[in-house]
């Protein structure tokens, strides 16, 4: 059941969710978005050219996961802002832990709003994405 404005106050933690995007999903994402960057698909390129441990998730795929996560929490309420800082690359087939916390609730021009901190952690518990979002409630 979607959270409502009345469920939220500063410090309210959002439910944690996990995703483990597979290589097949990354390939499908790259296909749907037309993003064929070799660092996302080619293990040799990722290692030799980029110095990465293996092919990584596209940053905007993680943006997609966070958008989806917020819709799960807030249903049809409008996510008016979603900002992400990519702090670490995430590898294929690694579990991502997605969560968030309310940082502020307020009225803006008669509309009820909530600002959130959102994040993605990698399997080592390191924060790979740190971000912020705003939800506008009808």
């Amino acid at each position, binding site marked *: 059941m979607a959270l409502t404005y009345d469920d939220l106050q500063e410090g309210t933690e959002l439910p944690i969710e996990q*995703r483990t*995007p597979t290589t097949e*999903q*990354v390939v*499908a*994402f790259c*296909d*749907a*978005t*037309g*993003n064929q960057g070799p*660092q996302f698909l080619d293990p040799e390129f990722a290692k030799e*050219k*980029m*110095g*990465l*441990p293996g092919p990584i998730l*596209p*940053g*905007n*795929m993680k*943006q*997609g*996961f966070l*958008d*989806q996560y917020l*819709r*799960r929490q807030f249903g*049809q309420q*409008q*996510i*008016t*802002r*979603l*900002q*992400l*800082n*990519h702090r*670490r*690359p995430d590898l294929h087939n690694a579990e991502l832990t997605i969560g968030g916390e309310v940082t502020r609730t307020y009225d803006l021009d008669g509309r009820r709003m909530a600002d959130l901190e959102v994040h993605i952690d990698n399997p080592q518990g390191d924060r790979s994405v740190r971000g912020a979002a705003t939800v506008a409630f009808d």
Partner: protein
Amino acid sequence: MSDDESLITPAMEAAIGSEGEPRVVTIDKELVQRLMHALGEDDADLIAAVESGDTSYPVPTYALLTTSTSQRQLTVPDAPERALMAADAWEVKADIHLGDTMTIVPRLADISERIGGRVGHSLFINHEWVYTNQDDVEVARVRRTVTHFKARHTGE
């Protein structure tokens, strides 16, 4: 070049604020479906609305990712070849629907640099795209920060 010498060249500075040619795209049902599959979407109402081609049902902002190839990233002169996304941001002003026709205008918003950090001396280049729909309503601003660097990434 010493490590503390600026990576921002006069040509880069001159490019800041420049806009590229607008591109027109449509929010395509099939691409949105493929993207939903890739993200493991399980919202039954959304899946049904997209399957039926409902053009009144607001689709997630992530539908804009299907237009990524039309988010032409302006070429920045002299930028090091190695690059990774550092940040992404959406500012959403109106609902997005299947079949919307969007005009995307790219812009090189700004450039900054940082000495130190995981990849050493690096450039942060901010690209921005403004999406306007068929009713001339600004729907979203998409911003991407790309870091360019010369050193190899540690993967950390």
